[in-house]
């Protein structure tokens, strides 16, 4: 018996040893999944600082946890949660275009411009002022080219103390233009000459275009990146920072941590204090919205930007009494209803009436946007009456306001359409993605709306992979609905006009509507005039020329009811106001980290 017992004791010990060793060995965090910031190399001769800069001295970091200003304390950490994890840290490689990459990148990237979260205007970041025709920074030359001049701020340095110079602009340009690098080269490819200086950079574009305003949004440090394999070496670590923080750790699947950039060159505009206030920021990745909310409730995270479902917003607003600050804004993604004018619409709906303007106007009056916003967005924002509202509200004219919800008016238009088409009944087939709750809800609302005006209506929803992968591009729909991602400012507005490029309905272009294209059922004076406007918009940088043209172009799209803007998707951010100060949500793609250098712990 004793021998058996001893034997069993040995065996039990072995069992316990087995489990203990497996548990200890599995998934230990001290492995290759964790990466740390790459060591930086010394500055090159060409990037030597001007004598006046003396960057490291003038930008010496304050001691942590010392008082900066009453109410703004140095030190502490903020934890930001997001449902996405960046696939890469490099914005210029596949996957780098994900929103989360730039959301985190704003803590260590810097470029010519940034988006002010209060005014939504582009403001200068690394340069003393944004070049315009008025200030002489953008000059239309006699030969029709456009020269743009940047004056780099004297105090701007990389986190290793190397001054930011024109060579970095030049290197950024050359990197982007590398034919092997799969990144968008739009507008950069039109640069015909460059001229880097120690604290200046100039380039000339082949023709004037307002898109120059978006160039060099994030610089690459030549002294640190030159000689590396750009496409592979910077996916899991980051080059020296030009922003308020430097990359510290990426625990794959869990979090990215950035820590204070002791050489950050920016100061608080109000107090003159050195920025940033926080010692570190942790970006934690939580795929499930429910878990993001629970982690926020449990104060495991301080700042969140969850997908803006109405129930999520309501759950967050219920926490306002406990100190949460919740911001709900109209975001950059705008949903719109649209008509297909190409031949394949008839495969979806052989009785399609999209070619008839009265039918389209009838549809515009059929749509009850207020109800849509109430049902889908819980009435948190106003419906959309124009696409300029999403990019440049200051010049928006609410071009679609003419189409109020009006059942009688809609019926009149439909009767006129029937008479013109010689038909007794009208048929509409609606297609959008079936795995988007808001769009499914929209399709359900349409059933009643179209029923009220006596139009035969059918929903034919598809999985997003099929819809975006095939249906959209081939024009195989009658009445469709999807969203575009907008960006603020003139360049963002111009992007909308290119969507109706009459020469680009196929691969390489995005006139999925096929309005005014060679295979369109509608080619008329309006589409011809719109094409002229679009060409003119792409050939000017003068706001006095651009603004009226953009307004006229939008009015044509509205009058012809090519599309019907519905609403901009909500963007939500919540922060524990009793923990983090200085937070201001930004409804553009810059999102809530646009002023991360201004955040500070309230509770220190």
């Amino acid at each position, binding site marked *: 018996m004793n021998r058996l017992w001893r*034997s069993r004791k040995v065996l039990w010990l072995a069992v316990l040893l087995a489990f203990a060793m497996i548990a200890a060995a599995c998934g230990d965090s001290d492995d290759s999944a964790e990466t740390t910031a790459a060591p930086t190399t010394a500055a090159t001769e060409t990037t030597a600082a001007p004598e006046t800069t003396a960057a490291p001295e003038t930008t010496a970091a304050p001691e942590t946890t010392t008082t900066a200003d009453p109410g703004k304390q140095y030190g502490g950490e903020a934890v930001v949660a997001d449902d996405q994890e960046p696939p890469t840290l490099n914005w210029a490689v596949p996957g780098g275009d994900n929103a989360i990459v730039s959301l985190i990148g704003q803590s260590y990237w810097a470029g010519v411009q940034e988006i002010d979260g209060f005014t939504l205007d582009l403001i200068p970041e690394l340069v003393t002022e944004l070049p315009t025709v008025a200030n002489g920074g953008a000059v239309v030359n006699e030969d029709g080219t456009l020269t743009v001049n940047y004056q780099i701020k004297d105090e701007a340095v990389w986190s290793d103390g190397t001054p930011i110079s024109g060579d970095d602009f030049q290197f950024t340009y050359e990197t982007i233009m590398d034919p092997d690098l799969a990144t968008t080269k739009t507008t950069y490819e039109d640069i015909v000459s460059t001229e880097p200086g120690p604290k200046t950079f100039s380039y000339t574009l082949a023709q004037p275009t307002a898109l120059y305003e978006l160039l060099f949004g994030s610089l690459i440090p030549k002294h640190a990146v030159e000689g590396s394999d750009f496409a592979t070496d910077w996916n899991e670590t980051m080059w020296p920072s030009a922003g308020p923080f430097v990359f510290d750790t990426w625990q794959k699947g869990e979090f990215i941590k950035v820590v204070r950039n002791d050489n950050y060159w920016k100061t608080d505009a109000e107090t003159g204090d050195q920025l940033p206030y926080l010692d570190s920021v942790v970006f934690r990745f939580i795929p499930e919205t429910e878990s993001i909310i629970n982690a926020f409730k449990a104060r495991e995270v301080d700042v969140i930007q969850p997908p803006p479902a109405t129930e999520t917003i309501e759950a967050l607003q219920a926490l306002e009494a406990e100190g949460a600050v919740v911001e709900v804004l109209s975001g950059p993604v705008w949903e719109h209803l649209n008509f297909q004018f190409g031949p394949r619409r008839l495969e979806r709906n052989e009785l399609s009436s999209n070619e008839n303007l009265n039918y389209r106007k009838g549809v515009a009056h059929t749509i009850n946007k207020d109800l849509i916003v109430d049902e889908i967005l819980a009435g948190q924002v106003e419906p959309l009456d124009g696409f300029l509202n999403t990019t440049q509200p200051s010049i928006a004219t609410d071009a679609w306001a003419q189409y109020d919800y009006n059942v009688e008016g809609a019926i009149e238009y439909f009767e006129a359409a029937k008479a013109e088409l010689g038909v007794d009944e009208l048929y509409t087939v609606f297609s959008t993605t079936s795995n988007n709750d808001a769009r499914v809800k929209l399709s359900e609302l349409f059933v009643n709306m179209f029923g009220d005006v006596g139009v035969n209506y059918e929903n034919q929803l598809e999985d997003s992979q099929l819809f975006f992968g*095939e249906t959209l591009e081939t024009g195989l729909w009658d009445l469709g609905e999807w969203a575009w991602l907008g960006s603020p400012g003139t360049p963002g507005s111009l992007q909308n006009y290119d969507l109706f490029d009459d020469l680009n309905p196929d691969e*390489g272009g995005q006139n999925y509507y096929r309005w005014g294209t060679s295979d369109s059922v509608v080619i008329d004076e309006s589409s011809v005039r719109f094409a002229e406007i679009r060409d003119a918009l792409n050939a000017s940088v003068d706001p006095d020329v651009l603004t009226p043209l953009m307004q006229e172009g939008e009015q044509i799209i509205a009058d012809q009811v090519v599309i019907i803007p519905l609403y901009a998707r909500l963007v939500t951010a919540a922060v524990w106001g009793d923990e983090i100060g200085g937070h201001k949500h930004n409804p553009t793609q810059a999102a809530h980290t646009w002023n991360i250098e201004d955040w500070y712990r309230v509770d220190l």
Partner: protein
Amino acid sequence: MFAYIIRRLVYGIVTLFALSLVVFVLIQFSGGSPLDRLRLNPRMQPVIAQLTEQWGLDRPWYEQYFVWLKNFITPIDVAPQEGLTIVMFGKLGIWSWVAVAAFLGAAAYTVGAFFATAKANWWRTFRAFSIIGVWVAAFWIIKSRIVFALNWGTSFRGDGPVWDNIFGAAGNTFRLGLTALAIALIIGIPLGIYQAIRQYSFFDQMGTMLSFITFSTPIFIIGVMLQLILAFYLERWTGVKIFYVVGMTGSGYEELGRGLFGLPSLAQLGDVIQHLTLPALSIAAISMAGYSRFQRASMLEVMHSDYLRTAKAKGLPRRSIIVKHALRNALIPIVTLVSLDIAFMIGGAIITESIFGWPGVGRLYIGAISAIDYPTIMAVVMAIGAGVVLMNIIADILYGVLDPRVRYD
């Protein structure tokens, strides 16, 4: 037996080949493209064209399949890693897998040997030394960290080599899965046995009811409820942070300091437990309910068998009847259940990992599916497939160990 194993392995390879073909074709014909995400950005058309060519998406599907298959089984050069840590799953290579297999084999052998009837002293001594020998060998293999990798391609999402991603996540998945399995086995099996012994008692009825409730509750609900009760409200009630809602470790894990020989310190161990408990409990709750029901049924079947009635008639002690005669036979069906659970563990607990922000294979898989990242999808599917094939073979072998009536022809 050797011939049997070889035969099963050959069948397994054919099965995996068929699996890869079917899944690849399904992905190809399910519509959509990994580049669809870029299409709604009006300025990305040239990039789409470039990536289409670079990734070979413009080729016919069968060409893409053969390129994938060739790469999938082609080794690539990886620099050997230095260091004598007991961390297994970094750049996990074939030898690390051998180590895993050795661990699992040793663990299974240890459990099996525990229940085996010892007939001679020499056999007991041999058994004890062989167990220690297996552990020493496994430990040596882990320490040597010989690295090997196959060319499983690069993720279309942009997050690097698939091999690294899969095995980077596999360790995390095993940490969660093995803990959950241990909890489920340690509680579920004794629970089932006790219920069978006390059939129709109050405890049995309560156990049955709770098992049905747990089993029929979606894991999402269980996970979120655990988050709210044990992470959120418990902290409010006690003022002490005991468990965390999300994550595998805190962001300050490394600052907690390492223990002796680079092993996790007590503080780090505490941090791990605080993060691990809720997701492990979520998975364990459902498995536990399943194991207890299965064990109860199996135990009842055995307890009503003729040979047990004979044992009772011979006047053997009740404890001896249950432990020596009933339990050994009642455990046999559980082997299949557990081995399949281990196989599917490789694929990760998709929902649980998403709820608790656990960086495992399941979460990787979900992300890959939504991005149509077929190099990653294929790799995960093949890993699960290989796991199922392998664990089935192991289960069959264990049957023979546990049940002398089983013969391999």
